[in-house]
């Protein structure tokens, strides 16, 4: 298990001009390690749809990579998105599944215990899939593994789906989420879109 804030710090240190789309607890902790105009923290995608939004964004912006930080509870709400990622996922999309086995935002209720998220991703066809057949599925079991693999997922064609088992011992900042339209406007502005 990786301490989540350490993983987010490593990601933020490796990130250059990628768009980072995040939802749920990542929206609370990512701002502790990053302040970038291409950060898109958003709680209101609709349940489980952060990576779907990220897929659309990556298709629209092929000149740069899109990284999606999402949780395992959200993925369970939209498992079909794995199949869509395997079929339509572009080279420039990276999905990092922060696997904490709990619905953390709603009080830490446990997820089903037997599900294998990397297995689901492989069975969906992501490994060797995506629009150009360059997709991959990996698991980062330690911070060292993450650090070793980050250059690959940020520098080679994907889509890359990474499962990162995480824990968290840091206090979470309070949820403060309003102005969803303003977040959209800011991201489009940062991308140079009117």
């Amino acid at each position, binding site marked *: 298990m990786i301490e989540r804030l350490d993983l987010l710090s490593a990601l933020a240190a490796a990130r250059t001009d990628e768009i980072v789309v995040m939802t749920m607890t990542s929206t609370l902790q990512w701002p502790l390690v990053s302040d970038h105009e291409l950060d898109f923290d958003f709680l209101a995608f609709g349940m489980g*749809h952060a990576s779907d939004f990220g897929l*659309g964004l990556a298709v629209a912006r092929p000149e740069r990579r899109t990284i999606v930080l999402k949780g395992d509870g959200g993925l369970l709400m939209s498992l079909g998105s794995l199949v869509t990622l395997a079929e339509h996922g572009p080279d420039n999309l990276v999905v990092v599944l922060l696997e904490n086995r709990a619905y953390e935002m709603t009080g830490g209720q446990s997820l089903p215990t037997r599900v294998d998220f990397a297995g689901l991703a492989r069975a969906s066809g992501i490994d060797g899939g995506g629009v150009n057949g360059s997709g991959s599925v990996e698991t980062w079991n330690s911070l060292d593994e993450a650090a070793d693999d980050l250059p690959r997922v940020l520098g080679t064609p994907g889509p890359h789906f990474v499962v990162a088992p995480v824990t968290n011992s840091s206090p979470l900042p309070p949820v403060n989420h309003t102005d969803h339209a303003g977040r959209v406007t800011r991201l489009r502005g940062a991308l140079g*879109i009117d």
Partner: protein
Amino acid sequence: MLNCAVDIVQGSGQMSDVNQPIGVSSAVTVETLMRLDFTDVVMIPDSESARLFDAVRSCDALNVISPTREGEGIAIAAGLWVGGRKPLVVIQNTGLMEAGDALRGCGIGPHIPLRLMVGWRGYPGAQAGRLPVDSAHPYTEPLLDAWNVPHWHLMTDDDLHTIGLMDDTASASSLPAAVLTGWSFR
């Protein structure tokens, strides 16, 4: 000049009471989408939109993404638009009902002007007075009204201008708008 080769499928089915073929031409719909500068079609085909699905897939100028559920499609379209593209979401009314949370979260809430083409399952039966009426039929327009999603009827080729009205309205309001298709595409 449109760079999309689509075979024109002549209507051979039912005629309306004004001798207008029922349903909309897939080919002319694709031409309309291209004239309006749509870039992507996010679509889950159903039996009524099957010909449109074939038509958009045969058009190199339109990128087609087929998700597994309609909520996915709404979110994908939202990402496309935020990234600067102009997608059309084509789903059935039953899928619209499934996608309500995504429509709220990725359209209405953040003011993303999603353009929707919604197949109106149950419409032909209701028009013909067949009982029982498909339960998807009566809820479709009230549901769109409840979400304040303006919508127009796209039932024949004479209604194709409604795609432009829908598009203009979405653009002006930066909110979702829809056309409803009641008959199978020709």
